[in-house]
């Protein structure tokens, strides 16, 4: 029994070792290698160099293309899917981190299931040249993401390229947001979905990931207290309690083409504020530009609001101490007098 098992293992090993990648590249490593399918030329070329730089370099071609057993293979190999390895509990050590699972619920997976043209793994990660996202040559390296998503979402890409976030990236501030920082990578959900990072109730949390980062905001020169001040404002509190018609960050700042207030194209440029506020407050006019935004009364930058707040703070304290002292004096006097009369 054991002998038979050993024999099989030997055969299988031999078969595998015989089909080394080297042998595949004899054909597939030739640049214009391909077939004509339905009257169109289809390239079957795989760059050996790029494959060997990918995270899958140590795997054999046949690890994924399991139905290829002899070379040359006479039939077209079956379509393969990343989930062959990237599933929870796989034994080959393929990283999972629940991302394929997250993808399944995304807008892309759902569109795909309905037969629409939508990306799955290979469309973003490439087929044979998957690299780690930290690798500058990866298809999903941060600076390449807008171009990647923009292959389908073209107008949005153009809007985004006007934004301060993209300007930040081009100036080398790699912490600036690209598509995936707000929309997330795999579990991209429609904004109507309460779990979406861009659901009105989650927008503040999404922007805040970076805009409450003290070091980053200092580096890019944006007040870090803005999200906090927003959350203390009427808009912020109402939103927190589920009034989703209250303005969130994106309502005023825009989203894909977000720009600083100094830019005349920005919806928060002083000249555009009347229009921006006017979306909800019909009588808004140039008056709304007269004052600061994201005001925290306890901050000195808030001007007159700060002074009124501070005055009241101290005044309340003085009143408190004064009244308290008077009450204590009254009661002490009362007790002393009472003791005196009962003593006599």
């Amino acid at each position, binding site marked *: 029994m054991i002998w038979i098992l050993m024999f099989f293992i030997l055969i299988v090993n031999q078969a595998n070792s015989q089909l080394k990648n080297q042998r595949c590249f004899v054909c597939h490593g030739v640049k214009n290698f391909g077939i004509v399918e339905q009257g169109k030329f289809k390239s079957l070329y795989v760059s050996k160099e790029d494959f060997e730089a990918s995270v899958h370099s140590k795997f054999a071609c046949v690890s994924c293309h399991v139905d290829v057993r002899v070379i040359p293979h006479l039939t077209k190999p079956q379509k393969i899917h990343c989930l062959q390895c990237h599933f929870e509990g796989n034994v080959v050590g393929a990283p999972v981190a629940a991302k394929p699972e997250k993808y399944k619920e995304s807008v892309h997976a759902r569109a795909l299931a309905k037969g629409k043209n939508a990306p799955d793994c290979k469309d973003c990660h490439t087929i044979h040249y998957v690299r780690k996202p930290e690798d500058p040559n990866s298809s999903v390296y941060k600076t390449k993401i807008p171009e990647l998503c923009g292959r389908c979402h073209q107008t949005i890409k153009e809007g985004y390229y006007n934004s301060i976030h993209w300007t930040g990236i081009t100036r080398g501030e790699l912490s600036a947001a690209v598509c995936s920082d707000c929309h997330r990578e795999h579990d991209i959900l429609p904004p109507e979905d309460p779990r979406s990072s861009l659901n009105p109730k989650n927008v503040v949390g999404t922007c805040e990931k970076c805009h409450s980062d003290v070091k980053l905001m200092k580096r890019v020169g944006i007040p870090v207290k803005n999200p906090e001040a927003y959350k203390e404002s009427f808009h912020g509190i109402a939103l927190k309690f589920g009034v989703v018609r209250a303005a969130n960050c994106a309502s005023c700042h825009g989203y894909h083409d977000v720009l600083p207030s100094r830019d005349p194209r920005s919806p928060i440029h002083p000249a555009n504020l009347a229009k921006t506020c006017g979306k909800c*407050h019909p009588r808004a006019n140039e008056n*709304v530009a007269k*004052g600061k935004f994201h005001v925290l009364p306890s901050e000195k930058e*808030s001007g007159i609001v700060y002074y009124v707040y501070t005055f*009241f703070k101290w005044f*309340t304290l003085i009143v408190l101490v004064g009244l308290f002292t008077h009450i204590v004096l009254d009661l*002490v*006097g009362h007790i002393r007098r009472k003791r005196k009369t009962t003593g006599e």
Partner: protein
Amino acid sequence: MALERKIQRFSLSWRIQHFLLMISVTLLIITGFALKYHDTWWGKFLIFIEGGFEARGTLHRISAVLLFITAIYHLVYIIFTKEGRMEFKELLPVKKDFVDLVESVKYDIGKSKNPPMYGRYSYKEKVQYWFFFLFVVLMILSGIVLWFHNYFFGILPKWFFDLSQALHSATATLIITFLVLWHLYLVHLSPSNFPINASFWDGYVSEEWLKENHYLEYLTKVNPGGKDKGGID
């Protein structure tokens, strides 16, 4: 005491005003502080029992209308009725109030043998009235700006709304400090009133109480001729 003579101290109109003020201010405090402390467990609880965030706002505005009506009622009372004008005159601060304050403290620390003799309203009550007068004016004005912000957006600069909001919030804190500490002390915890001075309800106080707390008023009420020469017993 077998037969305690009762003396009417507050007219029906006065009591209605106080009652309206009490109801509206209590509601305003409960609904307002729910918003101010929305981050705390009790703030969340208050918002919950007030029927949610938007219902809380509606309740606050209804209470505000009640306070506004009370304020108008009071203004009409002190301007157009004889009784109101008399009461208002009694409430105006005079030099004696400052003397009384000093005397009262002297009496408390044992430097003076007799307490000051108060008229209809002592400095303690006058401080209360005027503080509240100021509070209500500030709250109504800033509240109107906040309530009708959509209208005022066309008229007032942005910073004015921030100012109104800060003012509304800060004044509220001052009110509650004052109310809890001073007003509740005067009418509930102070020795001569403990546990409660019920005159806010029926308008009556005992003759003893009036004699002890408002001797000069007692004299005019009991002895309009002013022949009583007695001091404090």
